[in-house]
């Protein structure tokens, strides 16, 4: 259901007889099993320790006693806001840059190489450095203080390379015939982009989005110094707000007896991620469908 808009991909022949084919099949299946095993181990651990402490109240109450008791309602709200700011900034920036790289620059031209190189470096910047940088630029220099805005903007810088790379890959995967056909029909490049290229590149964009949201939701070090530590319900984007990960880190590493709620919070975070992934793909599918039937 999430396959590319191209006609369904043929399944490859199954019955290989030569030994290489069989060995690879066995290897690929064992890797998948190993992966699943590790996943079940880690998530199983989380669920086993966290689930007993989960309740509806945990989601709707404010934390008490440094987080050992009470719930995580304000932390959930802050997390949503931080990720929201992050996407609101990084999506246009990321898609625009990807369009530039894939459509409006020759691959080997100097500007494209510079931008791509700097993005590759950006992808390697450690989250703690993003934290220090965000603190200096957004919190102090631009005067946003410890705020959801500072945190979201810092995360936007961080997820940008992921978003750009996968959107660019998506655009590159669109066959050149589409572009030629559009040009032959006299479509402007703007129209080609909106009507044809972006819809066709959606799968790439969606992968980037999911990876980016995952990265943003799971970030700790960059947020500790920017969006901060305050566990109160935020009143605006200029308030400090503690994210789920900062909460988990504080409870697990800094608050004696905070472990149970750290696990419970981690379960909420992982569930949230699952829901967001599913929604993202569903929305992307629907959007894709509409776009394609219209054009």
């Amino acid at each position, binding site marked *: 259901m999430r396959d590319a808009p191209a006609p369904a991909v043929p399944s490859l022949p199954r019955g290989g007889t030569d030994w290489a084919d069989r060995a690879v099949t066995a290897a690929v299946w064992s890797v998948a099993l190993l992966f699943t095993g590790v996943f079940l181990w880690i998530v199983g651990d989380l669920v086993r320790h966290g689930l007993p402490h989960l309740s509806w109240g945990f989601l709707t109450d404010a934390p008490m006693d440094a987080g050992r008791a009470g719930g995580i309602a304000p932390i959930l709200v802050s997390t949503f806001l931080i990720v929201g700011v992050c996407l609101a900034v990084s999506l246009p920036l990321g898609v625009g840059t990807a369009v530039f790289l894939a459509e409006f620059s020759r691959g080997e031209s100097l500007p494209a190489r510079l931008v791509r190189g700097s993005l590759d470096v950006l992808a390697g910047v450690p989250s703690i450095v993003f934290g220090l940088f965000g603190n200096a630029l957004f919190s102090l220099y631009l005067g946003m203080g410890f705020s959801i805005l500072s945190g979201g903007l810092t995360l936007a810088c961080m997820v940008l390379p992921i978003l750009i790379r996968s959107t660019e*890959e998506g655009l590159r995967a669109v066959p050149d015939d589409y572009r030629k056909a559009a040009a032959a029909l006299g479509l402007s*490049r703007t129209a080609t982009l909106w009507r044809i290229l972006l819809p066709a590149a959606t799968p790439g964009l969606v992968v980037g989005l999911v990876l980016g949201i995952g990265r943003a939701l799971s970030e700790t070090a960059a947020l500790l110094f920017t969006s901060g530590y305050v566990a109160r319900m935020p009143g605006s984007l200029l308030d400090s707000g503690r994210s789920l990960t900062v909460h988990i880190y504080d409870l697990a590493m800094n608050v004696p007896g905070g472990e149970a709620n750290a696990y419970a919070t981690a379960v909420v975070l992982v569930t949230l991620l699952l829901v967001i992934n599913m929604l993202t793909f569903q929305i992307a599918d629907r959007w894709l469908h509409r776009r394609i039937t219209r054009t």
Partner: protein
Amino acid sequence: MSQPRGDASLIWAVRGLAVASGGIVLLIVAFLALEAIPALREVGLRRFFTDASWHPADGADRGAFNLVPMVAGTLTVATGAVLIATPLGIASALFCRFYAPGALGRAYRRLVELLAGIPSVVYGFWGLVVLTPLIRQWQPPGQSLLAGILILTVMILPTVALLSESSLRSIPAAYLRGATALGLSRWATIRGVALPAARSGIFTAVILATGRAVGETMAVLMVMGNIVQVPGSVFDPVRTLTANIALEMGYAMEVHRSALFVTGLMLMAIVVVLVAANARLGREGRRA
């Protein structure tokens, strides 16, 4: 090439956005350099390579500032993790795309996506509570280079797997049909058609994963023991550059603090070298 007027504004808009995205790195480097100046002036760049050890809290004169063991730590742990995660990640993408029956493939993909989103704190905590005691039974003290490599492998695997899979998926169906029509076996089709066609995407995946491995902080700090030494074996505890910053930044004053920004610059230098090397390899790979 003449452009309609609407197109011109679009082009300028995407150019502007690209410049903004590309400029972020420069801002970060400038900021790190600014904060690193006091240490570079008082301690001098040389001593960051030649001092006996790392004891920056004793001040510029009596302290020691050698970063080389941490550079070694960062490089070994990242290399180890990427070497393991790349084949596993590609295998995982192949499973999803070509081996698993439809529904299973989708479920498996969802599972990999979930792994991508598990916070590094959780991985670190799991590593500290489950993994390091296991390694300790084998070879103390448990918190070690090996623990770091394993945790990082699990953390970057989803990146390799998901991005490889998405580039495998965008291979035109005609290529695959052609191979099937020629009577190629599944593995021969993958090796001869699918993987070469997806090469640039897989390459991107590995670059991003390497970046993640070099930059990972919290999980590495929790499982690697953080001793400043060049590792002699995989069971030795090691400190990475990122862990160095995270461990000491909260308590560092003056030259010590500034020395941690030098650590940050060093990290950026490593990333730049890696990216340049990757780009070179990539170009050669594409030419071949």
